[in-house]
């Protein structure tokens, strides 16, 4: 099994509130905020490692991002991934989900030999949950989203897919793209040996030339999405607590409120 995992480096959740919006150019200001691997992507890496440990093969991790995204890749090497590739080129900057997906797809095509591609269910910053589906579309391979369990049997993949209430079991042929949820596993801590090994391992840097992409296919130019305005949602007003002497009084108060708003 050759497995490719796409990971994204995101601002640390504990510092997420420090990310500010630059209203001038509608971009996010993340300077000085520590980065982590998108949490769902750690689950994807863990799942890839578990499948490899069971069935053999190779785990390759890719990210598209600035040079410091190397740190995220090195963390996955320390966990046990075999190879890491950083798609980094100034011309990739400003990519929307489509342009990101185009670059990732091309990288996957350059790697060539793959059975399974894993993604997180969504990035905790961009939050669109579009990249996995778009890559599978561009590669024209089956896609299963929101996996909470993956099983590989005789060249096929069986996945439990989380639904609002319960889950469904889906099967697909390989190669296949899967996006994973938190429930699927608990990512391991890196071993010391892994950390020491990862420190010396080479991380491949691929630019547009290596990806055989034209400038206009990616980056700002290759991004049909235009961010018109970006803003923080207004804080939700506090809820109202209906007071009363006893339960009956409170229920009566609630009913009156609902009726007055013509909700019931």
């Amino acid at each position, binding site marked *: 099994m050759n497995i490719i995992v796409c990971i994204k480096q995101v601002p640390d959740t504990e510092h997420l509130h420090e990310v500010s919006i630059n209203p001038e150019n509608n971009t996010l200001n993340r300077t000085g905020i520590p980065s982590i691997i998108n949490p769902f992507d750690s689950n994807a890496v863990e799942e890839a490692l578990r499948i490899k440990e069971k069935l053999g093969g190779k785990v390759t991790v890719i990210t598209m991002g600035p040079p410091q995204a190397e740190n995220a890749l090195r963390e996955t090497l*320390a966990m046990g991934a075999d190879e890491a590739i950083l798609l980094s080129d100034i011309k990739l900057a400003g990519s929307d989900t489509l342009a990101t997906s185009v670059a990732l797809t091309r990288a996957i095509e350059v790697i060539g030999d793959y059975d399974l591609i894993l993604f997180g269910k969504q990035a905790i910053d961009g939050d669109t949950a579009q990249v996995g589906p778009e890559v599978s579309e561009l590669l024209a391979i089956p896609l299963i989203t929101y996996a909470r369990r993956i099983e590989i049997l005789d060249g096929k993949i069986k996945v439990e897919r989380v639904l609002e209430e319960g889950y469904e079991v889906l099967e697909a042929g390989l190669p296949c793209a899967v996006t994973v949820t938190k429930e699927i596993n608990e990512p*391991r*801590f*890196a*071993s*010391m*040996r892994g*950390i*020491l090994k990862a*420190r010396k391992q080479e991380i491949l840097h691929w630019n547009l030339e290596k990806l055989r992409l034209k400038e206009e296919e990616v980056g700002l130019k290759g991004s049909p999405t235009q961010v018109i305005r970006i803003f923080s949602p207004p804080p939700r007003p506090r809820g109202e607590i209906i007071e009363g002497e006893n339960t009956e009084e409170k229920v009566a108060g609630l009913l009156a409120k609902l009726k007055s708003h013509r909700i019931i």
Partner: protein
Amino acid sequence: MDFELNEEQQLMLEEVKKVCSEKIAPQAEQVEKEGRFPRETLMLLASMDLFGLVIPEEYGGLDMGFLTWSVIAEEISKACATTGLSFGANILCIYPIMAFGNEEQKKKYLTRLAKDSIGAFGLTEPGAGSDAGSVKTQAVKKNGKYYLTGRKIFITNGGEADVYVIIASTDPSRGARGLSAFIVEKDAPGFTIGQHFDKMGFRGLPNVELVLEDCEIPEENLLRREGAGFKVAMETFAAGRIGVGIGALGVAQRALEEAVKYSRERVQFEKPISSFQAVQHLLADMATEIEAARLLLYKAAWLKDQGKPFEKVASMGKYYASRVAMDSTVKAVQIFGGYGYTTDYPVERLMREAKLFEIIEGTSEIQKNIIALKVLKEYK
């Protein structure tokens, strides 16, 4: 001279901090209140290769030395002193085999201890504590086997450990020079666990009586040679003092961090108590003494890693760090006021834990004896 951790140490420490905050610290209170041995967290540390930190690579370890071990063990002790001391007691089993074992013994036991076997060291007996040379447990050789008979008490990790190094006498007429060290496996015939000691703190840490009744062990499990036991014990204690000192340091550092946090949050007289100079001075003393203790212990570990004489500085570090742990935890309880005396906050536990470090691995009095002896020789 360079006081900076190298890049490898920093990266390792970062991951250890992560496992400490996510897995080890959250269960510390429970370990204490339920008196539960934290086996899962120890196995988690083992899965991260941390059992083998000082063990040579050829026996499955990482050969990173005692300084790196110290940096990491402080973090573990800070998160959960019980996990830290159990982790530290492994060294008391690893070290004598590393330093005195032959090739066969190292291959057989160090590879296991580097992976996930828990170790223990048994010297103390009802009649032999500070006076370590007065061990009464006897080892008799018959038909290529040794038979050990006697009782060991207070043994850390006892009952949970897979491998024990035990000190016994092969020649009672020679006193301390008649002592020998043996490797004993947990399922050796005639080896059982007796009394569990109920303690002031470290209630999740097993400290038990080992009962040896004609405990049969193969002759090849003798370390070095008959009569080397006292030397094995003294060198093991010397190395172990770095470990115990680091355990104390972790407890002291935790007390400081808890005290700083609380003093900023607690408001009296309309001000956080951290704004009162009397409280600030307590924090300043704690921070200063902790830093000094850390430097002493790091120096001892560094000397050891360089193959230089380290015993004096290790005794200083252990003596000083355990005193600092005691003083700092008392100060922390003071800063917490009445809440500090309740079991709702961790500082009362830290205070109970701190006391142990002044007793084990040679009491503070014994450390001062050792230091004085060295000093009197050094400057004569």
